């Protein structure tokens, strides 16, 4: 009986010894916290350890560097400006790899439609093209350029079905897939709205948006 109690207390001590730093920083919760608090009432070693660790924490509490971010930021700006594409990977190389070899579809495309489109648009904007598109619903109206729509297909859609969809909407792929699995489509002038609606209505299309934010063409 007493052996069992001792073993149990030994385990409690070992656990407390390893968890004390997070008791000190106040992030322990629930049962862990309750067990440590209980153990601290009955273990002199852990009480001494707690005092020592509070000293350590206090010694670590010095100020954050008050240094001005400006000069370092300026050097980073220069690096960003110097890199082709503003430091982002270009999209065109990926297209050549074809459908089958394309990057895996981004799993959260559905949940993060905004981010997907925004990332694509951002990447495009940094290829030296005009800023086609900044954010969905952006107030400014970027100039029209190659590429009208951005589309994310359902990962289960096969290539033949994809081609049928594109033919039916009169669209052709001019860029993509991006890392987020999006393609840029070009649609003959005057057919943008029709193509947009057709693709939106089609099964196998997760997301389709205009690249130029003004919406009316």
């Amino acid at each position, binding site marked *: 009986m007493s052996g069992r109690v001792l073993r149990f207390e030994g385990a409690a001590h070992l656990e407390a010894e390893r968890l004390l*730093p*997070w008791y000190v920083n106040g992030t322990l919760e629930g049962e862990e916290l309750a067990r440590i608090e209980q153990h601290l009432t009955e273990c002199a070693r852990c009480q001494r350890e707690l005092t020592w660790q509070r*000293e350590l924490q206090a010694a670590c509490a010095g100020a954050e560097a008050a240094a001005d971010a400006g000069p370092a930021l300026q050097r980073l700006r220069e690096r960003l400006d110097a890199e082709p594409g503003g430091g982002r990977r270009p999209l065109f190389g990926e297209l050549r790899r074809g459908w089958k070899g394309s990057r895996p579809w981004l799993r959260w495309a559905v949940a993060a439609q905004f981010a*997907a489109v*925004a990332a694509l648009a951002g990447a495009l904007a940094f290829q030296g093209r005009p800023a086609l598109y900044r954010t969905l619903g952006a107030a400014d109206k970027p100039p029209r350029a190659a590429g009208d729509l951005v589309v994310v297909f359902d990962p289960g859609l096969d290539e033949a079905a994809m081609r049928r969809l594109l033919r039916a909407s009169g669209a052709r792929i001019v860029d993509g897939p991006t890392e987020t699995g999006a393609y840029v489509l070009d649609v003959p002038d005057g057919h943008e709205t029709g193509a947009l609606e057709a693709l939106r209505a089609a099964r196998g299309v997760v997301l389709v948006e205009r690249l130029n934010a003004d919406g009316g063409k």
Partner: protein
Amino acid sequence: MPRADSRDARPDAGRRPAPPDEAALVARVAAADRAAFEALYRAYYPRLRRFLERMTRRLPLVEEVLNDTMMVVWRRAHTYDRVSKVSTWIFAIAYRQALKALSRVDDAVPPADGDEAVPAHAQPESVLQREQWRAHLGQALGALSAEQRAVIELTYYNGYACREVAEIMGCPVDTVKTRMFYARRKLKTLLALNAEDAI
């Protein structure tokens, strides 16, 4: 060396409520919004600088690693998943970048502080002793590995939960606990040795 000035001390820095728009800021960075990126940079500069100073203890490396970190943030913002805090995501990048930089310049022996030996005590009792103890602690921290210093800094200064430290260091929670355990043991040994040397 810990600074005496505690005006800006934020022992619970990791738990300060994240500004609600930090995730939105990262989304804008994903859209190549340079203004959002610069806002994020300025918000994280002091925190990252301190963390990298303490972890690497090589001041000439700090700015380079910090900017490498933010360069990754710029390029990979679209991979931020919103499951983790923005701060743990950025700190995880900084931690990896620091390890990479250290492995490039690894000279095995960390630069010594060169302080004169003064008596150290297992536990400081007076103000003077506390100052001495802290000086020794600074030296002792220099003898730890960068990983051990990171776990100490992220826990005691940034105030991250064990699970978050594991996320940042990309290792299991048990590894964090073990790393912390050995870091503390080594610190105590070094502080005790220091105390003996002074006799």
